[in-house]
């Protein structure tokens, strides 16, 4: 039903041709089978998106630095979700945080997905010459994933890879939302089971790329230091209750509050005296 609706959109045909031509080129020039051509095409697309995703991972690490403060905001406005969101957004802006997730990179994936979907449907109608199987357990990439046992293996790999990539890419500090994203593939696997195996292969490849990229960037790029402003202004001695409640508080740099604490006492004494005279 949806594909009929999508097919009526004039941009779909050129997209399908683009995917078909790209797959044709990889298949003939690199000598790869059709399934490996899909993997190669996915890798090429993801390589083109590397600058974008590296930026996203940087932002995500930046976001993790502020996790304790964000958790506090979430606790404070637990009952009012909208207010909570607004306060979080304000916090982002005040601290120059650039939240990782944004809609544009996600939307960039959709044309690739649609074009591959239609290209594979065309493959099923008019099978191209050449090997359509993959690694001996997928006899034909144009078959639906639930039509053969190898497809089920692929679906299991899809669920695992999707969960792993959600773990890496969902930058949200909201635990329920994170769990929801993690559980999503378990629900959608029933829909995806009706998709061509080649499309599931694309999905698995892109997810594994996401996970690999996440692992590599985390290793190569050291996490930025925890923030020194604001947090250093709340000395742990004065407000033991607040600091004690938050489990993530010890992660704050211990030596940094110390200089602020040294400088603070004389000022406080003066203020108290002035207040007493008045």
């Amino acid at each position, binding site marked *: 039903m949806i594909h009929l609706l999508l097919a009526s959109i004039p941009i779909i045909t050129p997209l399908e041709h683009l995917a078909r031509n790209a797959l044709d080129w990889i298949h003939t020039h690199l000598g790869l089978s059709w399934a490996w051509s899909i993997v190669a095409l996915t890798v090429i697309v993801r390589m083109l998106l590397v600058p974008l995703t590296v*930026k996203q991972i940087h932002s995500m690490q930046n976001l993790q630095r502020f996790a304790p403060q964000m958790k506090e905001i979430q606790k404070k406005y637990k009952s009012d979700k909208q207010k909570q969101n607004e306060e979080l*957004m304000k916090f982002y802006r005040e601290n120059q945080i650039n939240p990782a*997730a944004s*809609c544009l*990179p996600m939307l960039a*994936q959709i044309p690739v997905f649609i074009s591959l979907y239609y290209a594979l449907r065309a493959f099923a109608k008019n099978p191209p010459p050449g090997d359509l199987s993959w690694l001996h357990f997928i006899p034909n990439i144009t078959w639906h994933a639930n039509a053969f046992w190898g497809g089920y293996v692929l679906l299991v790999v899809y669920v695992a890879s999707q969960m792993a990539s959600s773990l890496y890419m969902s930058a949200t500090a909201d635990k329920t939302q994170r769990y929801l994203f993690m559980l999503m593939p378990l629900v959608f696997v029933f829909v995806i089971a009706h998709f061509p195996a080649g499309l599931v292969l694309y999905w698995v490849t892109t997810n594994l790329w996401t996970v690999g990229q996440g692992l590599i960037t985390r290793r190569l790029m050291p996490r930025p230091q925890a923030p020194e402003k604001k947090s250093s202004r709340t000395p742990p001695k004065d407000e033991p209750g607040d600091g004690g409640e938050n489990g993530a508080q010890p992660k704050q740099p211990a030596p940094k509050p110390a200089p602020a604490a040294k400088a603070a006492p004389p000022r406080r004494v003066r203020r108290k005296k002035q207040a007493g005279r008045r």
Partner: protein
Amino acid sequence: MSTITRAPSYLGVGLVWAYRMTFGALFPTTCKYEPSCSEYAIQALRKHGLVRGSAMAGWRLLRCNPWSHGGHDPVR
């Protein structure tokens, strides 16, 4: 009359809902803006009609990139 003039925007809202049910669910992501891009699109379409609402939604999508800061950005 107002229902007739608003009809095209309903079509736009329907498309956003279709997106939410399909790709929005298949490619889960959290938006950096508040309200989220799809919610913004629905509000813009309802408030400003199909043409202006779509343009506003498109502009918001372009702004929702890894280099922007996000934040509270309601439909005006």
